[in-house]
């Protein structure tokens, strides 16, 4: 595993702000493109980030998304202050959702969020419990020959 971190970014997420939903994920997509990450990987990360971001918007008071880019992988952490997930197995079941009626009327709450994230990421870890918020950690392996990956010894950039 390559330990050289090329970039680190953090994006705040506001709970209940439906109209802002997707802002963090859109920024993630832009940052990854600028870093030379392949379109296929960008899409996987963007889809997973959107679902995770909307989980914070729909269920939590606030949170943030942290993005780390490495030569061989992209690592995302989504941490929130919210009610947490009481039953992880249930939350991972496609179609199960605890979203409000208001959220469902807007087309959210299909119960596909966490399953979608699991499908996109190469590695997924959730830490949560009732009243503890949610800490979600995702790893996406980058494809073999992506452009923009500095050669060994190059210090890369960080922000």
């Amino acid at each position, binding site marked *: 595993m390559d330990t050289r971190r090329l970039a680190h970014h953090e994006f705040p997420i506001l709970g209940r702000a439906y109209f802002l939903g997707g802002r963090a*994920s859109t920024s993630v997509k832009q940052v990854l493109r600028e870093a030379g990450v392949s379109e296929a990987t960008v899409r996987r990360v963007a*889809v997973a980030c959107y679902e995770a971001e909307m989980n914070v918007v729909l269920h939590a008071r606030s949170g943030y998304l942290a993005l780390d880019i490495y030569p061989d992988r992209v690592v995302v952490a989504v941490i929130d202050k919210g009610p947490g997930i009481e039953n992880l197995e249930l939350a991972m079941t496609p179609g199960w959702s605890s979203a409000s009626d208001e959220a469902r009327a807007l*087309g959210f709450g*299909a119960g596909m969020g966490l399953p979608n994230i699991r499908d996109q990421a190469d590695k997924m870890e959730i830490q949560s419990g009732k009243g503890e918020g949610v800490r979600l950690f995702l790893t996406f392996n980058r494809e073999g020959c992506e452009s923009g990956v500095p050669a060994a010894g190059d210090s890369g950039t960080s922000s």
Partner: protein
Amino acid sequence: MGYLQPVTVGRAVEALGLAAVVSAELGGEISGAQVSDLLSYVMAEGKRGQVWITIQTHPNIVAVAGLAGMHAIFIAGGFEPEPETVARAEEEEIGLFISAETSYTLAGRLYELGVR
């Protein structure tokens, strides 16, 4: 089986009689379509170059279409997008078009046009 000409967003907009709210991506070739009002479904199934037929009108539809790499959103059923939705579509250069027809009708016409 007849050869189907590629369908651009502009051609579909004209053929389906859609009204333009944000005229972006008119030259984009339509690779397929989604008909759904569930955002997570479109997030999972939406593909680059597709168009999305929905009756949702809030700004998140632009985020979903943008992240999935879709060309345009067709809002059916006579619904109109919220001002913030329009602003975001302009910002992200995603086509936004409206119609009084149902999602079913728009999808049928798009299929007839050759979009598969």
